[in-house]
């Protein structure tokens, strides 16, 4: 499954980042790396972004990008 399918309050481990190198570069620098635990804190209404937490970093990510983060 992907990060966008993870419901708020749940966490999972990142398994794959099938996306273009630009985005992967940025996403990894923000801490979303393969093998890391990621938790979804909340999602904005009406298809808005997700607030996710990796380590001590909280991030805002849009659903379009979240579907490209595969988790287990």
């Amino acid at each position, binding site marked *: 499954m992907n990060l966008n399918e993870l419901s708020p309050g749940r966490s999972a481990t990142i398994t794959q980042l099938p996306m273009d190198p630009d985005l992967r570069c940025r996403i990894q620098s923000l801490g979303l*790396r393969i093998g890391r635990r990621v938790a979804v804190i909340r999602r*904005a209404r*009406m298809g808005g972004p997700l607030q996710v937490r990796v380590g001590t970093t909280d*991030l805002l990510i849009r659903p379009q990008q979240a579907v490209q983060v595969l988790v287990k």
Partner: protein
Amino acid sequence: MKRIALLGMPNTGKSTLFNRLTGASAKVGNWPGVTVDLLSANVLLGTQTVEIVDLPGIYNLHGFAEDERVARRFLEDNPVDLLLVITNSTQLDRQLALVMQLQELGLPVLLLLNMQDEARRLGIEIDADQLAAEMNISVLPLSAKHGHGLARVREQLAALLSGDSAARKADINHAFAQDDALERRLDAVFSRSVKLPLAASERMTDRIDRLLLHRWLGLPLFLLSMLLLFQAVYTLGAPLQDGVAWLLQTVREQALAPALRNWDPVLSSFLLEGVFDGVGTVLSFLPIIVLFFLFMAIVEDSGYLSRAAFLMDAFMARLGLDGRAFVMQLMGFGCNVPALMGTRIMRSRGLRLLTMLIVPFSLCSARLQVFVFLTTAIFEPWAAPLVLFSLYLMSFLAAFLTALLYRGRLSNNEPLLLELPPYRFPTFAQMWLRGWREVAHFLREASGFILLGVVLVWLLTHYPFDAQPAGSDTLAGQLADLFAPLFQPLGIDSLMTIALLFGFVAKEIVIGALAVIYGVGDGQLGGTIAQHTDWVQAYSFMLFVLIYTPCLSTVAVLRQESKSWRFTALAVAWPLALAWLLSFIFYQAARWLGF
């Protein structure tokens, strides 16, 4: 002189450290290979003066974001003696990757572990000596915000720069494979030098977020806080602006006018109504710019701006914008000038330009003066507030329409990936320095342009010098006649067209200009206008005033911020076209319906 490049990820307190090290002496400078402004300052370290350059915040030295390109180009094209790298101690698990990338450039590195206080609060223990040994670089703890550890940073910098080694340009290769190896090393270094608490305790930030990002309360609270912010800036700003206006008026009437009494009338009019009023226009913006950035520093440094993005993103994303653009649009309702300067927080150029294109549609307080005057003069007391409200709606409509039309061209290619930093409060010194620096920037970049524009409009409305100022015989009157075929279909006569020309300088002077044009005092102006125009004409005029170029200062700042004459031309031409179109549609439709 030796040169230090200051580097770090966004939200690491990099600017705070830079301000701490350099004080108010920093200047904006141009650098080979780099198109954006970078702050730099000369600082005395030990016995030698060195130059410190503040590079934009970057996540990855090999990244594709504009800021990352800028930092890379700077390091490739400018010799540097030392890299001062600042990190957020609470996020070393990912920030060390950047440090390792920078270390591979082969330049001396001093690594700073900032936000020690926050790390301690979270129970994160960092063994700085172990980290220094593992990475083979100098490491110092720091709390830039409170200034703790700063003296040791200065000492260490002086020591590291005392040798005779020559500055070098960096040779940056783009090997991603290396990055992967680097990440593996990172995990090893991190686990040996940093101890994380077993269970993360709930932070204050989480509790505040639960309220401010609440499903139902989040948005109303956001709008409410924006309203309060807006009120604070402009209720504090209005008396200050009045004070400046009073001061200018006094100087003008008590000192300048008597002194120039026996001069040639054309020359004295040029000096008073051209040059002096031009200077006055520039000065009248200063209090509002300082105040705006005092409060913006709070919103930005507190971390609330990325929360605004979270709340508004679902809507703004459809317009090709994000929630931060909405904040700037709202702030534009006070004054467009600082709101345009505030768009600098957006790091993607496309996104920033698109925001700068929509901010000038915000019905600012200067336009409000015109509308309040005209609606009271023309409309029944019950209708006037509704008319005003409709103009606010049109303001949003014009902005959203523009965003929809231009989002393809000014495409925003950077995905929205924002950090939500913990809530922090900036120190007063940080806020003040920010406001002061923005004012200096505005004076340097925009004042000449504004002065020139005011003098130009003075010339148009006074030449030939024997004609009645702003009358139909002046250049302005002739221009109005020339444009009559364009403005007649909008129901705007040639006298009002001259007022529009004045309005190009500043909307505050439109009413005064109308009084001059109609040759009546301010007291009778309302009645005179009501005799000359019906409500359809008046509304068409107001629509035009709302949407076309807000003022010369806005144009100057659009130029200052975009650094592109092409974009500035677009930002002037498109609203003019839209103003004409909307006024035309309204006027013709109203007439066709029999009003």
